[in-house]
């Protein structure tokens, strides 16, 4: 009976103690870059929402498409109106896992390689992605970085022929987020 009670308490505590292991931000940074022969297009988003669960490796992102800022206002308008259709699909999300989360030692400052896989939803299309990145533990904060390419055609984004030379078919995405321990 005593053993059972002990197990009971232990199991419940494990189940309920999740929050202490979570890291979160709402000011993450994502850049995308399209290099083509005629034009270089770059957009910055500094309002990226992300959360990471250290105990399970669960890792999510949410990005409002309208928060991407371009150098030229017309690029931004075309991005929202013609390509990603922000009125219909206001945000892009990623829901997945850091598969080697056990390698990240939150107790010790340092840089750890991270393997991330999960589902990226953009322009209403969900695709499985698998990328490498890194986590840097620094004074209690967790800095996540990654750089990868996505093909616009995979997400049903069509580039008309007459601007085919202005927009690259693969977009380079740079992620740079600083996660803080969630206090809730």
């Amino acid at each position, binding site marked *: *009976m005593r053993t*059972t009670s002990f*197990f*009971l308490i232990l*199991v*419940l505590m*494990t*189940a*309920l103690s*999740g929050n202490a292991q*979570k890291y*979160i931000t*709402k000011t993450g940074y994502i850049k995308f870059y399209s290099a083509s022969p005629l034009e270089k297009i770059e957009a910055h988003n500094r*309002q990226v*929402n*992300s*959360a*990471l*669960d250290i105990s*399970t490796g*669960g*890792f*999510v992102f*949410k990005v*409002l498409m*309208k*928060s991407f800022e371009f150098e030229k*206002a*017309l690029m931004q*308008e075309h991005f*929202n*109106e*013609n390509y990603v*259709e922000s*009125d*219909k699909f*206001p945000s892009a*999300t990623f*829901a*997945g*896992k850091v598969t080697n989360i056990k390698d990240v030692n939150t107790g010790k400052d340092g840089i750890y390689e991270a393997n991330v896989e*999960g589902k990226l939803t953009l322009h209403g299309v969900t695709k499985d992605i698998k990328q490498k990145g890194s986590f840097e533990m620094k004074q209690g904060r967790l800095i996540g970085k990654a750089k990868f390419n996505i093909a616009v055609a995979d997400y049903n984004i*069509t580039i*008309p022929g007459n601007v085919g030379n202005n927009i690259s078919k693969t977009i380079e995405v740079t992620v740079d987020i600083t996660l803080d321990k*969630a206090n*809730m």
Partner: protein
Amino acid sequence: MNNKFLLLLALSGAMLISSAKGQDDLMSMIDKNETPTIDYTSATFKTTRVVIGQSIELPPKGNLLFLISHHFGALNTGYENLYGLKQASIRLGLEYGLTNWLGFGAGLNTDKNTWDGFVKAKVFRQSTGARKMPVTLDLFANTAIYTIKWPVPDQKNYFSSRMAYAFQIMIARKFNSFLSFQLTGSMVHKNMVPTSEDKNDIFTLGAGGRVKVSQRVALSAEYHYLFTGQVVSTLKQVVTFSRYS
């Protein structure tokens, strides 16, 4: 037996709680953490004009637009006039966006060599999210000076007779990405009119809209109703259409 049952219950309960704390839980956690933002409606119209009349759009902040506008004659003037093509007046204009809510511009129109300057300001911007506003409301004012020789050189002519002013209030709503609609109230004051029957103050009520038929093609139309009895000697009613891509 009883103890084992309790343990099983506790384990399954714990597993339920754990799985609920998966990615969905993280997603709702960031949703709660998100700073509420004001989502301003963009691209109600493609340009700063519905067709020829002003739209509620301004040039983007820090952007200079160069516009070449053609105002054709009436369609029903027949082949001899090439259905209005021959009466085109052309305006060359520059517009600049000073802030997100204030723009100004100037232009030269071949109709009586008229120079004009204007300011346009957004008073309300249609938005959702942290602040909800159903419509965008703009105010517009311009001054125009025609610079051709005096039509009647023998009489005493005053410089002020060359001047006219226009004031507009525009209310627009983008219902969805497919449909935008605008109402425009205008008042034009002409210091000098051709005859004594013509009014110096002229009021019109205009309506215009945009239908986005595909990702890259939109059709626009507008009509400004001129209330009767104001312009007697040179009456024309104009409906305009355009296609933007």
